[in-house]
């Protein structure tokens, strides 16, 4: 894959009052990859994403998204990105297809709600309210709203938190499809198996600093080469494999 940066972050700093949440981080996201931001709670992942998404002001630093400057071209950036917030609600009292229509209006784009819902396998829920969806369905719906404007990049902030193993795998498939269709994906997660499985490259963020960027495989190889060994010998399967094996592969919501 040609490594052409689509997002460039240089020396990003964010202070909340006296509190220094992001302390000068720099990284690039390449076009067409799934890029993972990993790190403990409070590391500054959401803050960083929301600054790139033009939803929060930065304290200092330089960011370009698909060639647009975050300071001067915020509106152009909004046109080419899709955003799933870590915690967002949807307009009350509307069903899914009405919500999609609303977003079509907000993006100034004509799409049929069914077409969008089909992408995330929610056509049978078209008349349901968002609040009546299961956790996994909610996440899939959120992703559908990020795809309405045919974005070049989508940002997913912990899309799989709280989902069961099948729903998680189902979402991975969806995210891979989105990437394979040419959309760059920036994702945060607390599940390392997920990052290992899904992400082309990951960055570790801790205490407002980036402490490493590379492919998951490279990180693992590096660690192994340094002489690291798991304390307990890994069995050939783990409990998640048992779960999947016992409950079946197909995910079951709806």
């Amino acid at each position, binding site marked *: 894959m040609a490594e052409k940066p689509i997002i460039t972050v240089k020396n990003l700093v964010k202070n909340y009052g006296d509190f220094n949440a992001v302390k000068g981080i720099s990284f690039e996201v390449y076009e067409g990859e799934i890029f993972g931001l990993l790190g403990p709670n409070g590391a500054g992942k959401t803050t960083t994403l929301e600054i790139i998404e033009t*939803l929060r002001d930065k304290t200092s630093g330089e960011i370009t998204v698909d060639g647009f400057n975050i300071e001067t071209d915020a*509106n152009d950036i*909004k046109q080419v990105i899709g955003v799933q917030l870590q915690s*967002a*609600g949807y307009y009350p009292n509307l069903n899914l297809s009405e919500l999609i229509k609303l977003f079509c209006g907000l993006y100034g784009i004509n799409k049929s709600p069914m077409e969008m819902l089909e992408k995330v396998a929610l056509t049978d829920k078209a008349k349901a309210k968002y609040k009546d969806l299961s956790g996994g369905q909610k996440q899939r719906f959120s992703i559908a*709203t990020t795809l309405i404007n045919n974005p070049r990049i989508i940002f997913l902030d912990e899309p799989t938190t709280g989902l069961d193993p099948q729903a998680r795998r189902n979402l991975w498939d969806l995210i891979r499809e989105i990437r394979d269709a040419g959309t760059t994906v920036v994702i945060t997660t607390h599940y390392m198996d997920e990052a290992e499985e899904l992400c082309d490259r990951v960055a570790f963020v801790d205490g407002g600093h980036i402490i490493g960027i590379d492919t998951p495989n490279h990180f693992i190889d590096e660690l192994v080469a340094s002489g690291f060994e798991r304390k307990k010998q890994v069995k050939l399967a783990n409990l998640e494999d048992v779960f999947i094996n016992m409950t079946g592969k197909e995910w079951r919501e709806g």
Partner: protein
Amino acid sequence: MKKYSNFNATLAIARASFRSIIRSPSAVVFSLAFPLIFIVVFANIGGSGVTVDVGVAKTTDTLSPVYLALKGAKVVHLITDQSADEMAKSLAKGNIDAIIDVQKNNAMPPYTLHVQYTEASQQKGGILKSLLQSIFFQINSRGNTIPQPVAEIKETTVKGREYKYIDFILPGMLGFSLLSSGVFGTAFVFLSLRLTLVIKRFFATPVKKYSIVLGEALARLVFSLLGALFIIMVGHYAFGFTLIHGIVTVINMLVLAALGLIIFMGFGFAISGIAKNESAVPPISNIITMPQFLLSGTFFATTAFPNWLQAISKVLPLTYLNDAMRKVAFEGAGLNEVTHQLLILGVWFILIYAVAVKTFKWE
């Protein structure tokens, strides 16, 4: 790529908001059910009483036998504390049923009774008429020694329309409906859109802030005006609410309703910024709506209040909205004839939006 249209985005929000409003029970209850219930209840209470209200002209000879006989009659309620001007207005509206003036003559017969009836209250005028006839029959046949009659009657009837209680209560109910929808509705919607991060998600799209405000306002305006139209129609066809110039009056009322709602929404915007969470909305909103609900002539004319209360009611925006509504609906005034009320509403508009702009929060 097609050029981005703020207009379409605004309409998309308005459409979504309108759907949401008509699906939320509280909006429908406050804007339609409550006002209609009040109208039904009060329209039925309002028409009671079998007394005939008779204004007494200042020039009346209160010692004359005619006056004394009327004073003794149970069904007659004599009103002596109104000025000639007030009485004439009340008569035209049917708030009083007749005006009498008893004058002593130097010639025969010694007394003349001038009675003014009103078309606005023909039934009660009729009661008074037959009452007067029997009084005169008694007085004139009492002294057998006097061959000539003691008094004569001169009658006239003024033109007027009956001012029914519905004519008073309906504009008040409209005002109440607009006030609660504007203040509570707007405050709740913007606070909850902010707290549930719906607005934040909107900001990730190219939509402009003004589109969000405008779209929401548009939806509420359409909803409230449809509600107002419904209330007016029910009032007119079911309870005989007076619409002097018909459709023109309705349109004027809707224009006033729109202006009122826009002002009340300003309170809602301000409250949504001040309130920290949803449970803080009702108390703050009540501080705004309750005094207006009680003191702006929703149920009773403000003239019934003591002076210090009247002074308060003379400041409140709803007082002027109600006032203008009643003038337009009952007296058939055009909007150019309620400029005084509109001017004061305009001052409120500037004041409240100056506050709202300061307190309103997006996140």
